[in-house]
């Protein structure tokens, strides 16, 4: 029977049962930063190389930005492209999102829109932080 309190079926990530708050926090932080999963690796081995290539390209873009060789617009373009790709990766490897308070432990299956919202919001925060940090450090100048 469908639970009307949840928008989709409940899902438990591997770390959801831990009682150690620090471990849970660390696992969630890792989840936010690392879109791949072991399960995802197995299922998506064919595209793994492409995914990593893109990840490397993004990293290079940030490094280029750090040495002042990329315009701010290009960084945003790269970051946006990466976000689109991350949505696809996560839908295959970590297809869940949290519902309700962020300190809670209610997870559910992510629809494509849920994942777009999650990755978009998360990467906006990460991107803005990195962008401002680079700007503050004088590594990019616009």
């Amino acid at each position, binding site marked *: 029977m469908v639970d*009307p309190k949840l928008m989709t079926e409940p899902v438990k990530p591997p770390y959801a049962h831990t009682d150690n708050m620090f471990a849970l926090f660390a696992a969630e932080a890792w989840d936010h930063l690392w879109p791949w999963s072991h399960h995802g690796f197995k299922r998506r081995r064919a595209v793994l190389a492409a995914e990593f290539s893109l990840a490397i390209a993004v990293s290079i873009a940030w490094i280029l930005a750090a040495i002042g060789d990329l*315009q*701010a617009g290009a960084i945003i373009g790269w970051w946006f492209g990466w976000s689109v790709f991350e949505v696809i990766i996560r839908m295959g490897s970590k297809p869940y999102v949290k519902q309700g*308070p962020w300190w809670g432990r209610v997870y559910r299956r992510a629809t494509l829109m849920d994942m777009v919202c999650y990755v978009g919001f998360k990467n906006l925060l990460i991107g803005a932080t990195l962008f401002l940090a680079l700007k503050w450090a004088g590594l990019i*100048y616009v």
Partner: protein
Amino acid sequence: MQTLLTVLRHCVVSAALALAAPAALANAYEAHLPAEINTAPQLCDYAPCKDIFPNATSFSERKGRPFYVEAYAEADGKRKLLGYVVLSTDVTDLPAYSGKPVITLIGLDAEGRFAGVKILKHSEPILLLGIPESALIKFNDQYLGKFVGDNIQVGQSRPEENIIGLDAISGATVTVIAQNQVMMTAGAAVGRQVGILEPVVREQARFIERKHAPDWNALVEEGSIKRLVVTPEQVGLPRGSEPFIELWFGYLNQPDIGKAVLGASAWSNLMGRLKEGEHALFVVRTAGKESFKGSGFVRGGIYDRVQVRQDMDAFTFRDLDYYNLYSVAAPGAPAFSESGIFIIRSDSFSGAYPWKFVFLGNRVDRATGTRSFANFDADYWLQDTYLEGGRPHIVVPDAPWLRVWKTRAVEIGLFVALLIAVAAVYANRDRLTRASTRKNKWPVNAFKYTGWIISIGFVGFHLLAQPSITQVLTWFHALLFQWTWELFLTDPFIFLFWIFIIVTVFLWGRGLFCGWMCPFGSASELLYKIAGSIGLKRFQFKLSQRAHDRLKWLKYWVFFGLLAVSVFSMGLAEVLAEVEPFKTTFLVGVLNRNWPYGLFVAVLLGLSIFTERPFCKYLCPLGAALAMPSTFRWFGLRRKQECSTCHACAVGCGSLAIDKHGRIDHRECMLCLDCMVLYTDDRACPPLVKERKQREKAGLALTPIGEDGYYIPIKPVPARAAGSTR
């Protein structure tokens, strides 16, 4: 048929032309200016100075610091000074709402009255389509004939405070406040240089000689020697390990500092050469290859790379104001590759008051290669231990944004109270929904409808505080180019509204703003409710869930489209953001815009009479932007397990946000609370009705309804044994 097609074609062409007309008028929007306008000595060869002084027959080269140009007319074979022209960016690059400056050519007549103003380039999105550029021209025309030394401010005149008021532009307050600052700063900069404005005479410092000899580090630590560093990135050059220039400077008239830097005899020698009211400062360069004296310096000229500013007064140096500095006596002084002593010959300057040392450089735009002037400065103020009586008390005038907050304090207070009240009412929604029933929702609706009316009248039409997707795009732009908090604080209502929106979206989802506080959304639903109550209910309809589920994605595409376009062209994104009817409805007014905009608003509001919030559900890009984080709101609405099979709430949901399984999509929910009223209504919620009937049949008491939406269970308590005592 052919005639019909012709009529249609004419309509489409007319609409396109009408829409394009304001854009065509907006000829200064992102206008291309020749690169030389920023640097060429002959400014008026590249800027339309003739538009400022039509009778002028010649214009001088750029002169002074900051630069200005003299306008002359030939009369009876004599050259007569008509006035002065200044390019605003030669004085200040203060950004307007777009994060970029409004580049303006400003003219002063020989008596110091504004003689002409011409906008050469701006990036203000609101002036592209929302408000005609002529509105800013009309605003600028208010300066004509006014004296540059007057206290001119945006807002009402206050003769008792000698404030001359200027009419603002509705919907472009930030732009005109920034423009006023530019006009007054640039005008004053010229006025002071040419003697129109009297220099401020400051009380001269009386020094305390402490008879100590601090070393270099001690002098730096106490602030008697300051450092000014300009990095290559700041002047548009590739980042490097070495600064573009690193300068150290200090004030030498104070005996302890002067003797420590120069040595006692050199200092006495220097002071002996200074007259009353003259001041000496030293400058040394410890890094960088650029000369602070300037490579093009010629005898008789002025040093064009350094300057001292005290409040609004600028002090430049001529060749006779320079002495060589061969060594620094203070132990621990760094090695330097260029040095000098500059003399300020003006009793307008005082060592007792704060001042700035300014390095005047050029910035190269790495994208276009164009150069523009850029000032880099460092503050200096002698420690009070060196001054008799300590530092003088200085009254710093309020920043423009602070003046706005002060002058509109009452409205701001009311607005904040409104936002807090709405949040507090919603936080207590459980009480309100329990006091309501399906047939009588007034405990909820009284607050909600009051909120709508205040939102439309006070927030929308009076305060013009309609949040918009253009603000999101503007922030994005400002983040990239120049983020200044002052800019956003200048519109206090929008600033506060966004704090409310961000907080409530994460607490409860977008529904509290969209459903209760958005002026246009409120107007839209209020129309729907009024139409229903005056007999038009039979014409009102809801789309099928299937159609809604498809159409709702449209607003997300609109939002993503605008976001993508904004990365490439903010201007185009702002044009496309006209999909929001907010400017036409509130900011500019239907009567002040071309008919297609009015027609668009009329269609949207007309549709709202027959179906609930069509714009909010299917088109609003701001709604889509807020819906996305609403996915992760903390507190949602309640549900019972039976909701998965019972469709009572879904049938009544005006937002069509409840699916066939009884799940509420908080991205679409407007938090009308109808389903929450039903949730605790034991005469309307089917599972609860069933439980009530069962209890009544069994003769059981009807206990209060718990948070889970059911009666609180009756738990039998074992009877106490007879005669037992506590």
